């Protein structure tokens, strides 16, 4: 009986740990994603939109000899040469060409909502899943009747039935 109780406790603890680990993993991976990258023409070319009307990042503009692309690339090269970091270059680009030149909205003002809400959605979803799962959990008092556990014939029949059901699904 004691062994059974210990086993239950372990599983319950394991459930909590699993949730905790999953939540940590989610938060950690999102946090790591926020590391500022080093500025290069290649890396910035994926974070800046071409303004020629092609609706594509600078590196993906399909137009050969695109004047707008060449102009923005020259601007970026100049900024890199001046030793500016990536946020500063992006800020200067936005000041010159407008916010639409950035492939992602800056994380300030109303645009902060763009970055925050997916994370909020993820955590809110997790909270809902945990709450639902807890509410759905069978109360400990309504454990299976002991007779069903001890009767090997009944157990074998249940096992056989479960196998056939498992075979279909």
């Amino acid at each position: 009986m004691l062994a059974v109780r210990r086993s239950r406790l372990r599983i319950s603890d394991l459930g909590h740990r699993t949730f905790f680990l999953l939540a940590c993993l989610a938060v950690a991976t999102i946090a790591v994603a926020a590391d500022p990258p080093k500025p290069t023409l290649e890396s910035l070319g994926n974070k800046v939109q071409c303004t020629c009307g092609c609706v594509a990042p600078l590196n993906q503009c399909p137009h050969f000899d695109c004047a707008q692309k060449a102009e923005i690339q020259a601007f970026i090269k100049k900024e890199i040469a001046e030793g500016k970091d990536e946020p500063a270059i992006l800020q200067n680009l936005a000041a010159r060409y407008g916010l639409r030149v950035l492939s992602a909205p800056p994380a300030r003002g109303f645009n902060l909502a763009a970055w925050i809400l997916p994370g909020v959605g993820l955590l809110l979803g997790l909270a809902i899943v945990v709450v639902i799962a807890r509410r759905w959990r069978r109360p400990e008092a309504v454990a299976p009747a002991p007779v069903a556990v001890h009767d090997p014939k009944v157990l074998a029949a249940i096992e056989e039935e479960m196998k056939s059901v498992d075979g279909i699904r």
Partner: protein
Amino acid sequence: MNQVGTVALIASLALAAYGVIAGAVGGKLRSPRITRSAERAALGFFLMSTLAVVALERMILGNDFHNAYVAEHSNRDLATFYKVAVLWAGQEGSLLFWTWLLSVYGALVVWQNSRKNRELMPYVVSVLMGVGTFFSLLVFFVANPFQELFVTAGGSTQAFTAADGNGLNPLLQYHPMVIHPPMLYLGYVGMVVPFAFAMAALITRQLGDNWIRTTRRWTMAPWLLLGCGILLGANWAYAVLGWGGYWGWDPVENASLLPWLSGTAFLHSVMIQEKRGMLKVWNVALVILTFFLSIFGTFLTRSGIVSSVHAFAQSGIGPFFAVFLAIILFFSVTLLFLRLDHLKSENRLDSMVSRESGFLFNNWILLALVFAVFWGTLFPVISKAVENATVTVGPPFFNKVTIPMGLLLLLLTGAGPLLAWRKTSFQSLRRNFTVPLVVALVAGVTLFAAGVRDLYPWMTFFLAIFVAVCVLGEFWKGARTRMRTARENFAVALYNLTMRNTRRYGGYVVHIGIVLLFVGFAGQAFKSDTKGSMQAGDLLRIKNYTLHCDGLTSGETPNYEYTRALFTITKNGEAFTTMHPEKRFYKASQQPTSYVAIHPSLSEDLYVVLAGMEQDTGKAVIQVFINPLVMWVWIGGIVVLLGTMLAMVPSRVEREMAEQKKVQSPGAEVRSRAKHSPES
């Protein structure tokens, strides 16, 4: 032919509208006669839509340039293969194509259910024809492909026949592009069938397992086709757009991903309902969401509310879709709320560490992904409305937000199937996960030592190995058990194991495909590129490849002029291959396009683009990319498709049980039919 098409459109609209009313009345009065009449209207809708499609195709193939749509999207010298595709190249034709595919699904549903699901069918037909009516109205009144070409001269308007058409968009003149839109549309449109069954089940209060079982395959088929369409679209972007990638998080790409993700969530959560009678409300909600997102995707592509390279020209079609989406949402959500009492869970969760909770977490991640992609796609519109500011939400945003979620999903892809139903003991966890974890850790350390230091690629490879060992271990354990019990050799045991439970093992194959897809995605972290101006005799080096330019040739076909660069490639100083990228200029549309040369391999693709010609020097501007592991994206996609097809095949146990049932009770089916007949 314009008249034939117009008459066919009017007839199909009338039949669809009749189908809505007759279906609803037939269901309400429980009259088989009226229900049959509604079903015949659905078949008539199919016939009339087919006639309209045939009329338009005949004009396209016959170069009938007095039709405005044909003159706008086709030309005389266009290859017949591409002329067929003109049907879905423009707004009007593609809406007609959408309507026709819907009518095909409707006819198939009527045919398949002529003797079953009789209580549901009147409402199923009514919902299907309701959607059909909406699209028929759009095709007839807003985007009619049967308009004549007119010219206005001296204040009078006259019918006019153009000498030649404007031609098909050059970007669409690529072989997989001919299959890509039909696949995508089949996926989008197909989601209407599970929605129709869900609505019918809610209306009739027949919310047991029946509608779920019927709709499972009807969801898997469009899910498979949508996945196939997405893959073909990615392949098209890779081979035609010439920027070295296959997924750019474009709004239209996102629109196709959304119903696929919510459909994936449904295909998982449906198992909990079948197995444990749980998540009933959730499953109906997912069906509604998937259908809503399918229509939303169509709306996004056609309304012009977001900027996209894939979108159709801006048109006034958006408000009609917005109203239709609102109607769908109001109707379905109200119905769902009214039937909450009939959707109570039959069981409770035994443990937080169980297959059920694994599915819950899977649904959590998938829906969080749906929300993130939906939010990112619509944010520019929201920002414009709130702040009157034009912002762009592109790859940097989506990569940052979705990659962590994708990795969590990958983890669950391996861990979920190894959890037992109801409750998983600690011993079972240790038994199932020790080997995969140890193998993944060893591989992870090896990769780190080999120089894979970036977090995301490293995590992807680590999790991919963990999941692959988990899933392959299931095949191994199952086959070993059969080898012992049935005395079969490994290959026979593996085959029998899979065919005995196609759904489970088909699902595992899909998971292996997902692993391969993630491995392919991770390869993007290691891509490299270079650019140079070249003429005959010039060399361009990238990593261990050297491109030797042998010269440039030019020529023309009836449809386009081309300039072709000829390259001999050496790898590590040894002869490797020859490659011939092209720049084409299509005569009818007066548009240029690139024809990328790709040398694919399992480890990396060598990708060469002739970007253009320098006017002053006459040199060719060449862009070269080395794209590691891209091949695994296509292989992974194919494995996902094969796994889905396997999961759709009835398993041996299922067939045996069906036969056993027939033998035990030959009259059962007849009795069952009589019992479910609305007349009884």
